[in-house]
């Protein structure tokens, strides 16, 4: 009966992935990445249940820590660029090309 959780996890991952591709605000893009990481966590915990070992649950801990560190670094970078340009849109980040 773990299939439902896997389907939910896949859905969350896809929603996050599509969000990264279509959203324009860097903060929202970043939140979508975090959604993808959480989808991974759900998959890990579900598989831990399915496989009958604890590895997946422990991995979920590590993923949370890494996600937190990533949040802090990401927000720092995004806020810095926002202060410079007064815009958090990824479309405005266009000085580097070709």
């Amino acid at each position: 009966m773990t299939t439902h959780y896997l389907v939910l996890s896949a859905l969350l991952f896809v929603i996050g992935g599509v969000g990264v591709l279509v959203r324009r605000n860097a903060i929202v893009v970043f939140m979508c990445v975090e959604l993808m990481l959480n989808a991974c966590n759900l998959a890990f915990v579900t598989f831990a249940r399915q496989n009958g070992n604890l590895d997946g649950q422990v991995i979920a801990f590590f993923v949370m820590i890494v996600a937190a560190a990533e949040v802090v670094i990401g927000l720092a970078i995004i806020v810095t660029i926002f202060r410079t340009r007064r815009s958090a849109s990824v479309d405005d980040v266009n000085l580097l090309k070709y």
Partner: protein
Amino acid sequence: MNGTIPAPTIEYALLAPMLVVFGAAIIGVLVEAFAPRYLRSAIHKPLTLLTLAGAFVITIWQARTGIPTTPSAMGAVAVDGPALFIWGTILVLAFVSVLLINDEGHFVASAAAVPGSAEEERALTEGATHTEVYPLVLFAVGGMLLFPAANDLLAMFVALEVMSLPLYLLCGLARRRRLLSQEAAVKYFLLGAFSSAFFLYGTALLYGYAGSVDLAKINTALGSVGGQDTLLYIGVAMLGVGLLFKIGAAPFQAWKPDVYQGSPTPITALMASGTLVAAFGALLRVFWVALGGLEWSWTPIMWGVAILTMVVGAILAITQTDIKRMLAYSSIAHGGFLLIGVVALGNNQQQNASALSALLFYLVAYGFTTVGAFAVVTTVRDAGGEAWHLSRWAGLGKRRPLVAVVFSLFLLAFAGIPLTSGFFGKYAVFQAAVAAGATPLVVVGVVSSAIAAFFYVRVIVLMFFSDPAADGPSVVIPGGTWAVGAVAVLATVVLGVFPQPVLDLAHTAAQSLFVR
């Protein structure tokens, strides 16, 4: 549940190089916290260099005292022949990059100050500088060491992040052209986080398939678990996306030119050498140790990726007018050449060892040359900072012949001209690929080498056969950059003329292959 968990064991001695680097990074943070501002730089510079040198000495000592044949730290880390070779390479390249970082004027005075604001003006006049760069570099190098040695996918994911997170920050710390630098940081961060989410979901699916994230156990499960092929194939594909992104293989190469251009040039040197070496180590380990039994499934995809990467890198490099972007596309193309070596893995023991040793040699040769090339880029300066536009390099050979000759040497090595290190690297990889039956791939490799040679030669022609502009850029060579240039020239020439010792070393390291 109590009493059922045996206490784990950790072989601290085997992990010593990593522990030294991470320990020094933590000491670096303490220095930042407690040392007065005027002392910090003076403490960091020797500390960082000594740490990297010390870790290198320990690595050598480990390689001489006997290489373990089983994974260490409860199977999380594998300190085997290739891992030790890669560690040594990364440590030397990081040492050279730090020499470049040590020279003044690369990093921002105050990253939090808005560019052009009074706050930034004040920080500049105070002579403030971000000495946090040194602990960040050490953390990144520690991650680079763990990444190719990680023997389970969780350790590999953590290493990936420990390596990447400091680099995201370092990218945004350039002193000049701060908007570009911040933009590089945002792009690298968003795309890097996106790709690591793919890596992680791939890990989750493989964990679901095999019941473990241990690379060897995944390989065992390939033969024994049936009926779950969907999980397996999607998992492998997503894992591959994460790893190929770090290498900058097409179609995941889009970040590379932007990030390489916008970052402070010494950090670009570190990324182009150290990160590439580490990422290739990890890619090889995953695809050989965990997915070796699935070779028939992933080899065709790898063929496609290798061809696309070489062609995209070589062709787009021709259209560039910016020296750093051109070097970035050249780095993409070299990633493609290295992927040929990955395809050559897998037929039998002897074939594997020769392909692996070819790859290791290529990584060393390319690493030194690329650090040297970026070191030269830092020396050619306009009033507003480094002169990136190719037109500014016109006539450099008449104004500063030595710099132009050195840069030409690096470009020739990139092109793989005989008597430079690049030649033997390419030769060894192509030879291994032909032996593995990947001749069409080698043909594409040779053709794109020829295309690439065109734009390398174009830059050389520009430097020597056009007239210098009246207001041409000045050339400033600080002490550290001198040393970096000298080391890179020496490595490029010595590896091009007497490659045998390093080839032998790579062969010895590859002989034991990755431990399972």
